[in-house]
């Protein structure tokens, strides 16, 4: 296993301690609940925003706790939603008179933990609302399925409600804004390689040297199809042909365009994909309002990328342009 790790079962706590120590006092750490939270939270004049998904998707979501983003993150182990108790205790600790917002990626484990946690909190008279992120177009949504997965679009939901909460928006307003982002964001991911969870110590799935998985899930869930690797131009076509018609995004729309790295792909390749996607979108009359090229939601060291489009209106544009201060940063 090509990893920097001590005891693999301590991987998540040791990572969280690093996040805490690197924060220079901006964050606090409660090892009992894998809990990273803002040192100045809860703020009685601000809704507290919490996410707790599986680990292994860093910087999502433990590294985007901070001003203008999350107030707290309580992740589970690598690729496993947090135990119910983490959700309950985190929500109690972060409770604000303005209420608590849970942002949950639509996976059974995350949903169930947050549903049960919310029930427990409501029994304690804590005001909780939930946003369910489900931007992955790889999965067909219908009444009899578990619905779409939440992937990199999660970043935009947090950014928008995080910025609005900072300005004092009410819990109800945050729910409206968050659901507006969720209704307008779509993602597809493509994997070129597998990844190795530290405790497992071997790759999650096999994939041949010349193959890629189109529509990969961020926990290595199979996608729409397994094909031969094609050129970057053709890959961008695969992305756009899946994402654009889904909303649909139309000529005249303004969008935020994100090329997200799944972990093992160089940022050079991400910018290469970005350039191609930007030109193809503009040729379809879809205008790029703002670019996002980096790792936002990874699948450990998986080689691959996802493309996310968010249709923006003036309110969302304003919120995306607000500042934020989190662990993951360059300067």
């Amino acid at each position, binding site marked *: 296993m090509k990893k920097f790790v001590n005891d693999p079962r301590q991987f998540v706590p040791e990572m969280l301690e690093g996040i805490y120590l690197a924060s220079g006092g901006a964050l606090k750490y409660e090892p009992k609940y894998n809990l990273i939270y803002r040192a100045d939270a809860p703020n009685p004049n601000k809704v507290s925003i919490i996410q707790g998904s599986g680990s292994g998707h860093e910087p999502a979501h433990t590294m985007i706790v901070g001003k203008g983003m999350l107030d707290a993150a309580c992740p589970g182990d690598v690729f496993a939603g*947090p135990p119910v108790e983490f959700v309950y205790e985190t929500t109690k600790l972060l409770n604000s008179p303005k209420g608590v917002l849970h942002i949950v990626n639509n996976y059974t484990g995350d949903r169930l933990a947050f549903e049960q946690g919310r029930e427990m909190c409501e029994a304690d008279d804590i005001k909780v609302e939930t946003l369910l992120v489900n931007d992955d177009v790889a999965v067909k949504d219908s009444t009899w399925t578990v619905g779409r997965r939440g992937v990199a679009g999660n970043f935009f939901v947090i950014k928008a409600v995080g910025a609005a909460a900072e300005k004092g928006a009410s819990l109800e307003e945050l729910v409206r804004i968050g659901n507006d982002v969720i209704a307008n964001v779509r993602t597809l991911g493509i994997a070129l390689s597998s990844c190795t969870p530290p405790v497992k110590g071997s790759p999650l799935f096999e994939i041949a040297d010349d193959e890629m998985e189109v529509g990969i899930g961020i926990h290595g869930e199979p996608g729409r199809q397994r094909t031969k690797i094609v050129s970057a131009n053709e890959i961008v076509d695969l992305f756009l042909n899946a994402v654009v018609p889904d909303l649909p995004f139309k000529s005249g729309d303004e969008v935020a365009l994100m090329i997200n790295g799944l972990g093992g792909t160089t940022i050079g390749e991400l910018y290469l994909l970005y350039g191609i996607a930007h030109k193809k979108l503009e040729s379809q009359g879809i205008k790029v309002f703002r670019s996002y090229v980096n790792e936002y939601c990874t699948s450990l060291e998986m080689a691959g990328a996802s493309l996310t489009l968010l249709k923006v209106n003036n309110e969302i544009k304003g919120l995306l342009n607000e500042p934020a201060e989190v662990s993951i940063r360059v300067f």
Partner: protein
Amino acid sequence: MTATEDLDLILKTMANTIVANTDYFCELDQVVGDGDFGYSLRSGFEVVQAELETFDHSNVGALLKKVGFVISSKVGGSSGPIWGTAFLRAAKEAGERIDISHEEVIAILRAAVTGIMDRGGASLGEKTLLDALVPAIDALETGLAQPGAAADHGTAAIQAAADAAVTAAEATKPMLAMRGRAAYTGERSIGSVDAGATAVGVILQSISGAWREAHA
């Protein structure tokens, strides 16, 4: 043996079996899931294994509730809320009893099943652990209603339940997964057994063996 002694035996066997089968349960979850099912269960049941003696044994409900709390505080993924809810609902049904009739055993188990269904929204035939657990409880109910059930301390009934679980787990193979992570794979989920259902079979076989030995 008292009811809590019996329950101790079951819990200890369950915990040992889960810890011993961690990798196997992960492998099962890997085919169409994300391969962490064994690790997730282990996180909770290794605590049960190590600390069972220290748990509140004043009545059946208290002991089950403590297990439910351990699972809720340690087990992540889908398994945490599902298994945690199962134990908490069973605890509620058991209440402060220190003696449990055959009928009450079945009622407690049915309460657990209802809890799982409430929590996860799954019905039978959707390729989840319910597809092994429910037939096993049915078989147990039938077995415990047999004339010899009291004489052999339910040994035959428990074996029948364990066998029913294994058969039913095998029967999840052709099912289309409709719940949990496996559901994302759609048609690809057909042809492999459900991890949770298979684990139920493995655990019940262990319990049946331990039970027979203890009551021989």
